[in-house]
């Protein structure tokens, strides 16, 4: 049995009285591609942000390779407002900043592309190699770290080559067409050398042809870098095609979980996506 890469236990994220994610528990095994799907506003990205440290969940914990990386319980004014369950189960508070999570080996991309706008394609990737530096500001300024600098540049070029953007490396990142900007975001995330890659709607705004290409590409990076992939997606073709297991949430709650063919026929899922049939 493979090791668990990521585990979410009772993750609840409440903004005041609004419960965005409600008691979400799930796991991802090493080497899997797992998708999280659900209608608009179901809380998918919020769940992601709880894992990556952007939000501090109201309750619950996240384990990465068996180690607790995020943990919280309702405190302060949330004590009275908290609507979820298991409120005293996670007394420990672990609240790392997103950069720490990335350093542990969890890379991510964003739903609304967030490239460094004034930087070139190459520099965008190069920035992502900064976290593995061994130099301090002085040694870096005086280029005592030139070997490391060269390695950073080589790694970045390699990543760009891999995603097929090496020819455009000196262009401004924002001047790339949309689909290539998405690829650049993936290249940038790969340059942080992750073990687990979180993709937030990688196929948003793509046509069926591009989506199919992207599906092949995701499988390819998984194989090549030995990654585990956790993705949020709306394109059902893509999800059904590449993911090994699927979690479905609606209004923050987990409504279904299983292999693609099980999800396809699940009445709850159909109801969530298409609405209830009027009789």
């Amino acid at each position, binding site marked *: 049995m493979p090791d668990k890469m990521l585990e979410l236990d009772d993750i609840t994220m409440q903004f005041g009285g609004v419960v965005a994610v409600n008691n979400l528990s799930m796991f991802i095994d090493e080497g899997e591609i797992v998708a999280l799907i659900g209608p608009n506003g179901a809380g998918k990205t919020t769940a992601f942000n709880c894992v*990556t440290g*952007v939000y501090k969940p109201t309750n619950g914990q996240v384990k990465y390779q068996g180690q607790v990386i995020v943990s919280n319980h309702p405190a302060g004014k949330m004590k009275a407002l908290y609507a979820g369950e298991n409120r005293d189960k996670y007394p420990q508070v672990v609240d790392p*900043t*997103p*950069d*720490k999570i*990335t*350093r542990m080996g969890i890379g*991510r991309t*964003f739903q609304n592309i*967030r*490239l*460094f*706008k*004034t*930087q070139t394609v190459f*520099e965008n990737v*190069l*920035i*992502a*190699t*900064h*976290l593995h*530096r061994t*130099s301090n*500001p002085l040694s*870096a*300024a*005086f*280029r005592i*770290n030139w070997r490391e*600098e060269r390695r*950073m540049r080589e790694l970045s070029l390699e990543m760009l080559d891999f995603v097929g953007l090496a020819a455009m490396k000196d262009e401004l990142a924002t001047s790339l067409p949309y689909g290539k900007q998405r690829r650049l975001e993936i290249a*940038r995330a790969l340059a*942080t050398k992750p073990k687990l890659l979180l993709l937030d709607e990688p196929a948003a705004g793509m046509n069926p042809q591009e989506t199919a290409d992207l599906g092949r590409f995701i499988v390819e990076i998984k194989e090549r870098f030995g990654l585990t992939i956790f993705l949020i997606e709306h394109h059902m073709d893509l999800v059904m095609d590449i993911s090994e297991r699927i979690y479905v949430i609606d209004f923050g709650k987990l409504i279904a979980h299983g292999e693609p063919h099980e999800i396809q026929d699940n009445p709850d899922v159909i109801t969530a996506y298409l609405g209830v049939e009027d009789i």
Partner: protein
Amino acid sequence: MKTKKQGLIIGFILLALLFVGLYILENTLSSSTMLLTILKKGVIYALIAVSMNLLNGFTGLFSLGQAGFMLIGAYTYAILTIPVGMRSMIYQYYDGGIVQFAMPALVGILCAGLLAAFFAFLVGLPVLRLKSDYLAIATLGFAEIIRAIIQYEGLGPLTNGSNLLRRFPTFQSVLYPFAAAAICIGVIVLLINSTYGRAFKAIRDDEVAAEAMGINLFFHKQLSFVMSSFFAGIGGALLAMYQGSIQAATFKSTMTYEILLIVVIGGMGSVTGSVIASFLFVASSEWWLRFLDNEMFIGSFHMPLLRSGFRMVVFSVIIMAVVLFYRRGIMGDKEFSPTRIRNRLLNRKAGRNA
């Protein structure tokens, strides 16, 4: 890579030529010429503007504390370097003050930078958690507090209260501030081009994405803040040397705005832009527009409007025009370099041939 090396060599040659030129200029002109004064003040402002640009232009932190750090630098330098024999005269109300030793000028300058950096570190701990306007207000407040503290009577034995500090070592040659500024700006440029500089720019462009790339926001903001203040402190010490005497009351927020103006006009995120804008700013505010302050007659015609203070009106109009026509500053976020100019000329030629 090859063009980069070429550019570096050309840069060094130009720098050497600059120093030779300055040396010749200094030995041919009388020392009281306005040009030399402008060059001295201009290069000191250039250093301070570049240090502010590191923070505001490259890291995207809108800080207005520059005058405060310059003040710390200037006072540290003055207090540490006034010759012991002069102290009883300068600290006449405070029995000669409590500092009874004097350091060499260079050590004093270095201490000025270090103390400014230390204060920046302390101030940065709470303040750098703020963003944009709030950060600006907090740093501005800090600068005012520092000025008030230094003028405080109780600290008189150390700072001489609100009285002048003078008779500390100054420089005569224009080469001195140029060398100091060249070294400091060189270090800033090296830092900006290093992997840490890339992290600064990433934070400026998108904090959320930068953090997701594993960049520790607080550490890098603090680093940029401390480095910027270190060089502002050195700039303050050089300014003290240039003026020959200092008084806390002159380091007002107006001074920060002057520097900010230079940074904006030169271009946020352009080192050469800040340097060029500094010289233009100092020259036009102190020299080129001076004639506007005096009454003038052409023949028997009395020129209207020209009177004391009119210079600032014209100056403001010029600045408005510059900002209107160069929205992103003279240089934008580009750098001025010989290779760039050559490329541009070649491109233009190619365009014409096509």
